[in-house]
């Protein structure tokens, strides 16, 4: 029974991770930037939903409001910082976003306090298998919402003009520029969409789990891990590896204890990278 419980929890959690990872894959593929502040954007999105909850609005509305606010936050970050590091070395972008991450972490700490908070959605729980498996409805709600958002985004990327421009820029920024795509605008929109996705995920996390100003970095690492396992631009892969990571985490939590949960995620990242390094070195290639 505990296995089923952990698997279900993990899958529902993994869908959320996959949503964040999709944002990261998007900006990584299009702008060639690794955003360490990804997790902090998620937490900021969560606080938006939490504040709606504090002022008496049902936190589920955060799923709509938070991405709209976060889109502008993302565009703002792009205009202030990211557009200066887009063409540079990847390491520069890692460090710059690390700075943003520290900044956000601390600003959130001032603004919202260092308490662990959650927005209570009041959705109740579902009991399965003679009450042996307990599933909060909020988790199911969050998984469904993330899937809906992901599908909407995929359709948008396929059909809309901006989506086509984004995909063209990802393939070859120079060629896209020659053919009249305003890459600067595309980059800003990509970063904004990424931040909006983080906002959705954050709002859902504030409903289902807890948020805390310092909890950002693990989300960044998880999404990075999911992206490298799945590969850029491989959507089913992102979904699958997201769920896999969720299940892994639930089992690590159950087997090793909660205090080793985050540690095991980071160790898994190291192990995956090392595994890929050995796999590729057999072909005399390296991770690019």
């Amino acid at each position, binding site marked *: 029974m505990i296995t089923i419980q952990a698997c279900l929890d993990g899958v529902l959690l993994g869908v959320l991770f996959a949503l964040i990872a999709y944002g990261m894959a998007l900006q990584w593929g299009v702008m060639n930037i690794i955003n360490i502040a990804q997790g902090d954007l998620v937490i900021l999105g969560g606080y938006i939903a939490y504040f709606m909850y504090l002022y008496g609005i049902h936190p589920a509305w955060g799923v709509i409001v938070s991405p709209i606010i976060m889109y502008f936050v993302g565009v703002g970050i792009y205009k202030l910082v990211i557009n200066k590091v887009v063409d540079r070395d990847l390491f520069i972008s*890692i*460090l*710059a976003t690390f*700075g943003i991450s520290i*900044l956000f972490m601390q*600003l959130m700490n001032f603004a919202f306090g260092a308490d662990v908070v959650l927005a209570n959605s009041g959705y109740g729980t579902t009991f399965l298998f003679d009450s042996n498996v307990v599933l909060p409805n909020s988790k199911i709600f969050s998984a469904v919402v993330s899937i809906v958002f992901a599908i909407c985004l995929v359709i948008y990327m396929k059909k809309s003009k901006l989506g086509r421009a984004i995909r063209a820029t990802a393939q070859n920024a120079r060629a896209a520029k020659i053919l009249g795509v305003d890459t600067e605008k595309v980059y800003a929109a990509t970063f904004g969409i990424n931040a909006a996705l983080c906002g959705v995920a954050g709002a859902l996390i504030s409903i289902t789990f807890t948020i805390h100003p310092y909890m950002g970095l693990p989300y960044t690492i998880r999404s990075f891990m999911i992206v490298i396992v799945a590969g850029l631009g491989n959507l089913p892969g992102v979904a699958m590896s997201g769920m896999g990571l969720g299940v892994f985490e639930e089992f690590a939590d159950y087997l090793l204890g909660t205090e080793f949960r985050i540690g095991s995620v980071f160790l898994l990242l190291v192990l995956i990278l090392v595994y890929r390094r050995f796999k590729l070195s057999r072909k005399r290639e390296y*991770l690019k």
Partner: protein
Amino acid sequence: MNKNIILYTAILIFGITAPFIFPAFKVQLSILCVLIVLAMTWNIQGGEMGYNSFGNILFYGLGMYLCASVQVGMFFPLAEWTESGGEKTFVHTPNQFFQGMAVGLVFAAVIPTIIAGLIGYSILGLRGHYFAICTLGLGVAAGEISGGIEIIGAGQGFTTPPFPDVGGLESRGEFFYFLSFLALVLAFIAIKSIYSTRFKLILNAIRDNEDKAEAMGIETMKYKIIGWMISAFFCGLAGGIMGGLVGYIDSTDVAFDGREMGVFMVLMAILGGKGTLWGPIIGATLFHIFKEGFWTFFLGWQYVALGVLIVVIVIYFPEGLMGYLREKFPEKFGEVIDEADRKAQVELK
């Protein structure tokens, strides 16, 4: 050459007399020495080898825990020590303290070096940002895991042995200052001497084009691991000293502090100019002054100021101070400029 000897003697004399000239800043000066060691050792990876590591904090934290545990464990049961927390049931005699510190520092330096050698083969095969993220993960994982181990204090932290009551009130500060200054001098001599050998050229070749270096017959992996081990040695030593200096070890806030110390060492090297001998030293000094200024004038907002500082440095000064000077006065750095060639290039543009 003559000028260099005068410069080094002046710095040495300043270093030895500093705690007596500025008695109020002894702790700050010792921290500065440790920071310089960290920045210089990071520079071996990030500056010379082109491998931007966020994970040197792993060795720093390991050294910190190892030094303190050995110092306690040599004379008293470790588990009971950590359990008693702040209220000390065991007291080190001066002899025990110094003996423990000496043995502890040896362990703190040697074991991270061995670990670096062991994990080096797998980690250093990664390149570019994969290496950066992987080492970031290593540092944070170490912090999270050590935060769950009971015998070294788990979440509540580990108090290092208090300094024994010898030589008056000032002796603690002086002891740690000279210890860290000694570590700094050792690190400087070691790094300066390896920078004047073929080893540095190999590291630079790896930075500039690793595949080509390999094609030229250099066993790049061997040299990468050796460079990483040198870093680990001094990081561990610095960590051991810092642990004794701070007096309290917490897994994520003091030892494996990837968000602070792990980024600081990168920043210091970048601020001063990576890939130079003096860059990290100047960068660390400037950074320490900045940081202490922030902590004094923006109390409460220091991390906000720090985040802004990181972004500004990275965006506007990626070459650092030495890089800027090098561009301005290339002759001083021994770079010969062919005027005719430059003119030809200007004309081409």
